[in-house]
């Protein structure tokens, strides 16, 4: 089992004829993901790689192929619009990979999302995507993560950073520990699912036995996660917070990673997580070891 994506997930790729969209659509197909459609306005009727039908609109793709998840590679000027189109077409899970969407655009997207009453979920933007590792037929990779480092198993990974997710997965797999589902929620200040949304899913998934949570400086999402872990979770959670040494006021690559006015520091987040019962890895090299120790102790 897994959360959000699995063998029944049918993916439409928005921006499939672009260079990033095309490259990663191919990678997803190779992994065994059911990429059933692509969307590029004005290119309807074509076939991607000679097999995946391309449509002008998301609504058409849903109608014709039964797509129930979307992966968005549309460049920043049109990315918010692409998300809204996916919502309006009733796509249940929308994953936006695009980096660099203006915040004012995402404020509107977020407002619409909140009005949908849970009909659609949004992962991202500015994220690596989501993967339930496994061979074709059971596994499902939606996004840009390297599939080969993953291994099917029982640890859930949720992270605000892409490469740091790979780092955690690499450590787990090297120890022979597999993953149920890995979700990159993205590094932007305003986006879709946050830690609590994902932790809720991991907590109720019988096949997820432990969780690695990777946060970073900025905002209060890690503190909210800590509260949830304390109140609602009985599965072990190992955490890491990036940015202990980041200078205040500087944007560290991710637009969200700014410490403003002394708020959102790594120290505060680490304190909150430790107090919640989670264990915070002392270095980013110890994420898997920290969780393994907790799970072994249980």
């Amino acid at each position, binding site marked *: 089992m897994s959360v959000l994506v699995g063998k029944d997930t049918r993916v439409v790729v928005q921006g499939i004829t672009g260079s990033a969209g095309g490259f*990663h659509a191919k990678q997803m197909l190779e992994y065994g993901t059911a990429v059933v459609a692509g969307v590029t306005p004005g290119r309807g009727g074509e076939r991607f790689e000679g097999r995946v039908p391309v449509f002008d609109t998301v609504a058409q793709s849903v109608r014709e192929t039964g797509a129930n998840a979307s992966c968005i590679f549309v460049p*920043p*000027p049109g990315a918010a619009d692409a998300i809204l189109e996916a919502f309006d077409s009733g796509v249940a899970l929308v994953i936006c990979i695009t980096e*660099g*969407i*203006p*915040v*004012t655009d995402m*404020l*509107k997207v*977020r*407002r619409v999302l909140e009005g949908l009453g849970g009909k659609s979920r949004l992962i991202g933007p500015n994220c*690596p995507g989501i993967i339930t590792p496994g061979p074709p037929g059971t596994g499902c990779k939606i996004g*840009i*993560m*390297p599939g080969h*480092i993953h291994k099917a198993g029982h640890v859930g990974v949720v*992270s*605000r*950073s*892409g*490469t*740091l*997710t*790979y*780092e955690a997965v*690499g450590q787990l797999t090297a120890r022979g520990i597999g993953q149920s589902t890995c979700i990159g929620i993205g*590094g932007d*200040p*305003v986006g879709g699912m946050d830690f609590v949304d994902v932790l809720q899913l991991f907590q109720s998934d019988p096949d997820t036995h432990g969780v690695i949570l*990777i946060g*970073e*400086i*900025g*905002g*209060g*999402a890690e503190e*909210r996660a800590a509260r949830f872990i304390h109140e609602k979770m009985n599965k072990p959670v190992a955490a890491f917070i*990036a*940015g*202990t*040494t*980041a*200078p205040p*006021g*500087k*944007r*560290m*690559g*991710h*637009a*969200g*990673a700014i410490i403003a*006015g*002394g708020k959102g520091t*790594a120290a505060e987040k680490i304190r909150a997580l430790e107090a919640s019962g989670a264990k915070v890895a002392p*270095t*980013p*090299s*110890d994420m898997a070891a920290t969780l393994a120790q907790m799970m072994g102790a249980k």
Partner: protein
Amino acid sequence: MKIHEYQAKQIFARYGVPIPRGYPALTAAEAETAAKKLGDETGSPVVVVKAQIHAGGRGKGGGVKVAKGGAAEARALAEKMLGMQLVTHQTGPEGQKVRRLYVEQGLDIARELYLGAVIDRDRRRVAFMASTEGGVEIEKVAAETPDKILTVHVDPAVGLSGYQSRELAFGLGLGKKETLASFVKLTTTLYEAFVREDCSLCEVNPLVVTRAGDVVALDAKINLDDSAEFRHPEWRALEDKDEEDPVELEAKAAGLNYVSLDGNVGCLVNGAGLAMATMDIIKHFGGGHGVAPANFLDVGGGANQEQVTKAFKMILRSPKVKAIFVNIFGGIMKCDVIANGVVAAARELGLKVPLVVRLEGTNVELGRKILNESGLAIQAASTMADGAQKVVAAVSKGGAR
């Protein structure tokens, strides 16, 4: 992206947010002319000479001075201020050189308030904050007397509503008919400016009430959302390259994320989170030995070999770098691209400091092969921790020699 006060005020003026009269000046002579002009326009000789740097706290550092005696005094103040290293709590100890001034009419101030609009990432809304404690560091007010900060959150589908503005106005003691109307208009236009100009911060500290009862933005600070640059070609004219770190500018032009830091280990990493974590782990193992990161550098996921070469050259050229740590977990980024970039840069500029490389992920075997066959003195690391410990050891040894 940060812009100057006078540029922010030009934006305010375009939207109808009331500001004092003023003129930018690049020389003392221009400051004198500006003061004269203001004297003629307002009938009062009092002007304020304000240093224009991209940092707050200018008043305390001596960057804001009142000239009561008119143009000649303004000129004398400008002569002193131009070229000075202005040190504030936001500039760091070395300060920032003053190259531009803004000369503004003096106002007869009755009250100083605070008004700011920011993205509240926890509520996913634009938040308007107001406080009766204007003219001081708002962070301090927030920390010490949070009840003195009023906040309303704006629904992006509706915009800032009248009742929300009024709520702030009553809280600020601006509930009388005249001030109420002008405050509501001011906040409404400020919100419009925030959204249309793609701001990430819009701050008026202080917002003043004059003895005549006018509500005026005495200061203005705007940060623009870098992600929206594609739809604002006019932003190029607002850039002030003198205010930026030249290395960071070079990096930005090359499509790289680079932030200069105070340490001695140059870092080249892919991905912002991994780059931050790499800094953390260097500090973790090296903090007690005087070893710290010299920079944050994220080459991103889709960098090509030229970008990697450029990035590595930037590190090689930095005189403070005593060792280099390349930490790559290739996803989209292929390890061979990194290896080729590193080798090309090192061949061109020479490698004079120890280099530790940790490669993992896509095409890792090919990447390692390229590095091995390059003839460069490279220490391979098996994990992040291994690499960090090796680079810390390399710097410590170098220091003892």
